[in-house]
């Protein structure tokens, strides 16, 4: 383990500050422990989760201060992104093109990567317990735990259900299973997509998925249909999606919102049958349930979630409001008006990294800026986007300084350009996050 180093030589400036500060939260016992583990490093930072938020935070922590001891905890050796997993379902991208590893973080940035599940966090002792029993001590903890599902909130959609009716809302085997089911479906079948109420990971995601599945049908199963049963009456980029669907897929895609009895109350995953609020039964040939969500399990274990199941944060730093020295970024947080997206998570990871770098040096974090751009593909050469810039002032309020959608009226060359930029975005953020180069 990294914390076996026994360099007791230099007493860091931070330890001195801690020692001198009368109201220091970190007890001296812990300070001695971390001093042992820290060696000559400025501070020990543990990052839980190697997705957009966590991997970005780890990289930018080391970029900003190479003398931080940064340990990334992520169970998967290969990480598949939810962004662009819909393109895999549409048959226009393969799984190895949405796969990322941690070589650059380890080899170029000197991040220690441990492929274990983080099982528990003790926010008082400042420790993280891993699946193999290892305990890591941190001065600062970053969590980017993503989402977990609220099993059985839709009756019958329990932990066994996804093997029959995949969610495919965490990319990997679930994504592969859904594509196999689509490929195995007879032409003329119905793909039913159950979409959740807000808030949930990737607001435009279900509608891009419907588009990509409809694209796949148009190529291979022309008599098949997509039915979206939605627990809400409005969705992200709705006007642009609806116009694009009409243009490409006609009545191949049907969307039923909340007031049209779109809210699914019960699922029989084995029979692929769903029942809505007012008792309508729908029989699917392939059933994809995107269930209601909450912050990833470890956030709950750390005690940083509130009654909503999500994590309240100070938006100036993304420090959790319910524990000291814990920063939470990405989908798990209550960060509205920022959406739960990979781009938001990346942006938040950079802000949290900067805040930690400043605080470890005894300084005030710089003003926070966030960007989100979400592209969606309606067809391979037809892209739409939503983009926004956010700032946080010293009072900690988030201000949206710019926000907007692709124009409603645009020619095909503009849509094609946005589709190209969607691919460019993926290429760039993959490079920025994991160093992946295609």
């Amino acid at each position, binding site marked *: 383990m990294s914390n076996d180093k026994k360099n007791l030589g230099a007493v860091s400036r931070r330890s001195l500050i801690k020692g001198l500060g009368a109201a220091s939260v970190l007890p001296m016992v812990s300070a001695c422990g971390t001093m042992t583990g820290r060696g000559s490093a400025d501070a020990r930072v543990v990052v839980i989760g190697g997705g957009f938020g966590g991997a970005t935070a780890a990289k930018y922590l080391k970029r900003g201060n190479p*003398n931080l001891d940064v340990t990334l905890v992520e169970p998967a050796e290969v990480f598949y992104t939810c962004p662009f997993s819909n393109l895999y379902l549409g048959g226009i991208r393969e799984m190895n093109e949405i796969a990322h590893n941690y070589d650059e973080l380890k080899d170029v940035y000197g991040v220690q990567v441990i492929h274990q599940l983080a099982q528990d966090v003790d926010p008082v002792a400042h420790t993280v317990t891993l699946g193999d029993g290892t305990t890591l001590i941190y001065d600062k903890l970053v969590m980017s735990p993503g989402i977990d599902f609220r099993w059985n909130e839709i009756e019958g959609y329990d932990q066994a259900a996804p093997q029959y009716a995949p969610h495919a809302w965490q990319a990997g085997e679930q994504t592969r299973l859904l594509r196999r089911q689509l490929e195995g479906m007879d032409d003329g079948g119905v793909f039913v997509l159950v979409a959740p109420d807000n808030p949930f990971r990737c607001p435009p995601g279900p509608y891009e998925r419907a588009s990509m599945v409809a694209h796949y049908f148009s190529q291979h199963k022309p008599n098949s249909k997509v039915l979206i049963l939605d627990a809400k009456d409005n969705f992200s980029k709705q006007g642009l999606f609806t116009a694009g669907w009409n243009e490409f897929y006609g009545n191949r895609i049907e969307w039923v919102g909340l007031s049209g009895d779109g809210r699914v109350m019960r699922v029989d995953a084995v029979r692929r049958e769903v029942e809505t609020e007012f008792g309508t039964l729908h029989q699917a040939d392939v059933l994809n349930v995107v269930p209601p969500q909450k912050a990833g399990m470890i956030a709950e274990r750390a005690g940083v979630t509130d009654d909503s199941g999500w994590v309240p944060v100070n938006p100036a730093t993304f420090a959790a409001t319910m524990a000291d020295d814990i920063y939470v970024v990405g989908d798990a947080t209550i960060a509205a008006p920022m959406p739960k997206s990979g781009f938001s998570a990346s942006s938040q990871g950079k802000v949290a990294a900067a805040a930690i770098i*400043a605080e470890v040096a005894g300084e005030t974090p710089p003003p926070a800026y966030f960007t989100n*751009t979400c592209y969606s593909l309606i067809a391979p050469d037809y892209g739409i986007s939503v*983009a926004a*810039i956010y700032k946080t002032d010293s009072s900690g309020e988030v201000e949206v300084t710019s926000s*907007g959608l692709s124009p409603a009226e645009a020619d095909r060359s503009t849509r094609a350009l946005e589709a190209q930029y969607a691919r*460019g975005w993926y290429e760039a953020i993959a490079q920025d996050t994991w160093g992946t180069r295609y």
Partner: protein
Amino acid sequence: MNNHLPWKSACLTAVLALGVSAGALADSHSADLDHLADEVLAGGCAGCHGTDGALSGLVPAIAGRPAEELEALLLQYKNGEGNPTVMDRIAGGFTDEELTRLAEFFANR
């Protein structure tokens, strides 16, 4: 960087007041705090232009281009000119002064 940040010097003073010598300070951490505020301001750009804006891919690289050129482009996009697709919505989120800082940041990458 030409913008001197008050939050930095104030905190350095506080640290010195705790009796830590400037020498120990320099030895004990390697954080490049001068650039931190600009790094955060520019953080989102990497999402489409790669780390440091240096990725030459489907989206054009911006690293190392003259600051005047980048600033002129950003102001143009902010005004909705030059077929910006998404860049009007991005540039529109920053003040002219912030756009100048962004242009200088990427020119120096």
